[in-house]
């Protein structure tokens, strides 16, 4: 509980610091929303032209996209600078965090707190529109709302775990951007589309190695298509929590190996 309180205090301090530059804050918020809107437009343009991809309509793909966007926005809001650990390792700024009387991961998570307002708004709007259309078509009912929220939460935890593990490799490799290209960027791009379009080896990677399929595709198979067991939601959470546990252990080992760049 005291950790949560500490997290809240540090986040508030971070927000106060960011709001000293109000123009920059709103500029980055609007630009982030614009980038996401254009990304979704690209997906929508392809689907509008060709109606569906292997049985997945534009509305269903919009649902996949919205779940992923919201999960990612929550993860990047809550733990923004975990993704940017490389920067701290290269500059030696991690030393400053080590000196603070709070757990180092908590200190890192509260640095440069950035509520991804634009992405949350855009992802939320797409989700509401897609779910409303699916309800109108009778494909889903109101009962789909609770599992959808569960899927978003599980997705956020899973993306956090993947981000944490990728960033932690920086304690050995220093440069992590190339790995993050695989584990975060490529995986995210792939997960915007239904997994069934990918060849077997890629589906295997996206389910077993970088298990991003658990963030949106597998829950959607149950929620939208009824092609999976309800246990898939519990399974997604189990994978997310297990990976987070693994990530925290890996983090602890990584921190113990940390060598400062010096000054």
């Amino acid at each position, binding site marked *: 509980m005291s950790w949560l309180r500490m997290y809240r205090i540090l986040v508030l301090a971070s927000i106060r610091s960011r709001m000293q530059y109000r123009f920059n804050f709103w500029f980055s918020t609007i630009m982030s929303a614009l980038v996401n809107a254009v990304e979704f*437009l*690209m997906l929508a*343009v392809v689907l509008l032209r060709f109606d569906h991809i292997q049985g997945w309509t534009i509305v269903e793909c919009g649902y996949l996209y919205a779940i992923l966007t919201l999960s990612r926005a929550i993860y990047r809001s809550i733990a923004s600078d975990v993704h940017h650990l490389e920067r701290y390792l290269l500059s030696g700024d991690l030393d400053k965090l080590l000196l603070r009387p709070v757990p180092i991961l908590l200190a890192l998570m509260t640095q440069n707190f950035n509520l991804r307002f634009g992405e949350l708004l855009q992802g939320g709007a797409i989700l509401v529109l897609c779910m409303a259309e699916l309800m109108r078509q009778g494909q889903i009912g109101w009962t789909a709302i609770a599992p959808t929220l569960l899927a978003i939460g599980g997705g956020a935890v899973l993306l956090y775990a993947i981000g944490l593990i990728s960033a932690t490799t920086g304690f050995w490799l220093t440069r992590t951007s*190339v790995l993050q290209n*695989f584990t975060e960027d490529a995986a995210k*791009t792939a997960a915007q589309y239904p997994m069934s*379009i990918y060849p077997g080896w*890629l589906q295997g990677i996206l389910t077993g190695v970088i298990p991003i399929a658990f963030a949106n595709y597998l829950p959607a198979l149950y929620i939208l298509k009824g092609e999976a067991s309800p246990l898939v939601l519990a399974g997604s959470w189990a994978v997310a929590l297990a990976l987070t546990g693994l990530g925290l252990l890996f983090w602890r080992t990584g921190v113990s190996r940390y060598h400062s760049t010096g000054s």
Partner: protein
Amino acid sequence: MLFLTLARKTYIRNLQFRASHLIQNLASAIFGFIYISIWTGIGESRSLGEYGLAGMISYVAFNQCCLWVSGFPTNGLGMEASVRSGQIAMDLMRPVHLFYHLMSKEWGQIAYQFVYKFIPIYALYLWVLPLQRPASVSAAAATLLALAISGYIAICLHYLIGAAALWTTESTWLVYVNYAFSMLLSGFLIPIEWLPGPLAWISAYSFYPYLHYVPTRIYLGMSTVDLVAGGLLWCAALTLLCLLATRLMRHRVEVQGG
């Protein structure tokens, strides 16, 4: 010969990171496989117009290679960092124009990316995909010309983005916005004739098609070299904008004490 000296120095500096960049190529190739899978999924049950499924695979694969010429120059040509450190004041004082200076350095970066990223990914795709080869030597030469124009346009765009660092600390976002629009309007994933009306119109009257659509169409033998004329006009217009931006930067820059 300042141009060659600056370009060569950037090229040589990059050589130190060859091993790391080879791993990056794998990530880039996987992105390409993702986009190819999308078109394979769509093309299995539908006609893909004049391209056909094999043509679309070649189209997307070649565009993925082109990214390393026109898609990933140094963010803002590194100007954001020099604005933050104050180095920009020194750069503006040099006896060579800032645009020419940064442009020359960036050509070294693009040349490196062509040799160590474009060519390896292209070779991989030639090996594992049914990637179409250029129809003739003249088609290959025309493609190289179109690629050079796309590289120059990308340099100008990143110069303008870098210049914005004098007005906001968040200019990096403009890199992402430009990239997102480029993905949508340049014909990177979907040929521009398949974009819906308003987007097709915006794309047709913008410089974006010269980044991907034109080089790839020429490569596939679907368009002739005449198309690059529009790209040359955009190069001229963007150069003028860059020169104007430099003039504004000179008024804006504040020299740090210390």
